[in-house]
């Protein structure tokens, strides 16, 4: 096969991988600090995307502009969900938490269906029809924007964690929650903020991808599964690993459909995940 085709598919895989990584980051944040597994993760992104859709249909607002509304809105939503639901199940069995979030999945998906109908939707943004070329290779503006923002969000997160007091508190809680409490850290507050930040990050991912992914009310669970896979592949709780795993999965996806195709090609990312986990259970960048 022509090398430019492979290179082009590689680029496309990277772009797609940035989306997976961006969604996975939120899962990593929440897990690191609360130990919670949120199966409704992807559904919050669906909420953000439908919010952008509503703003587009009623006010003709560009999704990039809508992110200024979607991000704070999802932050507040995250605060509320944490305060009213998650806070109460922190000490429950893991399976119960899983079940609670699955309950949320049912509620969100059905509510989206009843509000927005099941029609497929997608909202073009200002960069959607812009194309950047380099020789025989090219990439779409909205993909590139997502790629850059994804990387930027990763870098910003890294900076916050390493250089700020909030970051130090977050790391402290993730390493030893009781000790962090004994340092006078208000763990409940920090957990709530981090959860809300993770949801707000989905607000960002949602507004960035309205032109790339096609919306439908049931899209959430699939996104969640991909986010989980990325999260585990990267090494549970490892931020950089999550991003890397996202890229890897995107590339596996692209290569699978380029070289194998069909349903068998779609099996490649899952196969990669299963193999990796069996031979390196701690993930790509996780420590043993």
């Amino acid at each position, binding site marked *: 096969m022509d090398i430019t085709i492979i290179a082009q598919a590689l680029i496309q895989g990277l772009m797609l991988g940035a989306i997976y990584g961006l969604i996975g980051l939120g899962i990593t944040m929440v897990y690191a600090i609360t130990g919670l597994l949120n199966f409704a993760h992807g559904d919050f992104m669906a909420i953000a995307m439908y919010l952008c859709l509503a703003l587009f249909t009623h006010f003709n607002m560009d999704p990039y502009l809508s992110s200024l509304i979607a991000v704070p809105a999802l932050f507040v939503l995250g605060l509320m969900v944490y305060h009213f639901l998650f806070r109460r199940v922190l000490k429950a069995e893991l399976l119960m938490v899983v079940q609670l979030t699955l309950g949320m999945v*049912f509620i969100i998906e059905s509510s989206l269906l009843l509000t927005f109908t099941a029609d497929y939707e997608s909202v073009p943004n200002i960069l959607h029809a812009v194309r950047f070329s380099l020789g025989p290779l090219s990439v779409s503006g909205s993909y590139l924007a997502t790629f850059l923002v994804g990387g930027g969000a990763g870098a910003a997160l890294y900076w916050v964690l390493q250089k700020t007091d909030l970051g130090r508190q977050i790391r402290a809680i993730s390493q030893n929650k009781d000790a962090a409490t004994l340092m006078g850290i208000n763990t409940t507050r920090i957990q709530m903020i981090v959860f809300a930040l993770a949801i707000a990050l989905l607000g960002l991912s949602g507004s960035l991808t309205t032109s790339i992914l096609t919306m439908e009310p049931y899209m959430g669970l699939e996104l969640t599964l991909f986010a989980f896979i990325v999260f585990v592949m990267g090494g549970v709780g490892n931020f950089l690993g999550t991003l890397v795993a996202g890229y890897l999965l995107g590339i596996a996806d692209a290569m699978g459909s380029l070289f194998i195709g069909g349903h068998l090609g779609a099996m490649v990312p*899952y196969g990669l995940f299963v193999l990796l986990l069996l031979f390196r259970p701690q993930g790509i960048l996780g420590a043993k």
Partner: protein
Amino acid sequence: MMGENSRTDIKIYLGLLVLLIVLLLLPTRLSITWTRTFAMVFLFIYWASAWNIIGGMAGEINFLHPIFIGAGAYSSTVLYINFGVSPWVGMFLGAAIAVVLGLVIGWICYRSGLPHLSFALICLGFSHIGEIIALEWDLLGGSRGLVIRPAPGLANMQFETISTYYYMGLGMAVLMVGICHWISRNKLGYYLKAIKHNETASAAIGIDTVRYRLLALAVSAFFCALGGTFYAQLVLYIDPHSAVSITAVISMILFCAIGGFGTVLGPVVGTLILMPIGEVVRLYVMTGFHLIIYGVLVIVVILLSPHGLVPWFQSRMKKTQEESPA
């Protein structure tokens, strides 16, 4: 302590007996659709109980069951359609395949000591791969699925009246609950409980954790697969979307959660409450709304009684007994 427990148990079993008699007489009063719905309810009690052995009792987030159900449904159906083999025979081949698959996947996963989440996801990965195999393999009908032409007869596991399916489903559910009860009172049940509570500690006191988890998984897989055949013969159609479906296992976990993970009666109570409610809402209130009701119910139950309804009920009964020593 022991006496109190058995007194509570006797009350529960009396209640169950009454319920069973009511259920035995019910088809004479029910419309065909409700009879079918209840046949499905019993199948889900059966499946949820089978899942509960590995999921609830051993405390795993196990999503392998779509593979087991698919193995049962596809094996018997392919044998029946292509070679005329009776589903009564085919179901055991399906169950054997499910057990082998379960043991192989289980052995690979347990041996590497994966943490809960990784294990759950790897199960999902395998289930997804199973679905793709069903989609790709022409023998299994691909995405078009397999249609079983109706040919009622005992040998074909197809019945003229739905109430026969109803009684068969009821029998399977009772059998499964009995098996779960037996396991929970037995060495396997105690070991699983220990493993759920603390795997390292269980290994330290000499329980071969891998062996007992595999045993539980094999039992669970075996019975799930038999249920798969029953499903195929009830609906007379299977496709990857319905027979290797993650949604079905999510429902099973949901029913177990409402009733109480790891308890013998949890799956029964959860399924008997949720499925008929869902059906009524779906048919008479508002379509699409029943999932919202499911969601709200599960959240309310978990917030009010984090261990499910059956443990809550048991602790209530215990309390009233303590209060009135008579």
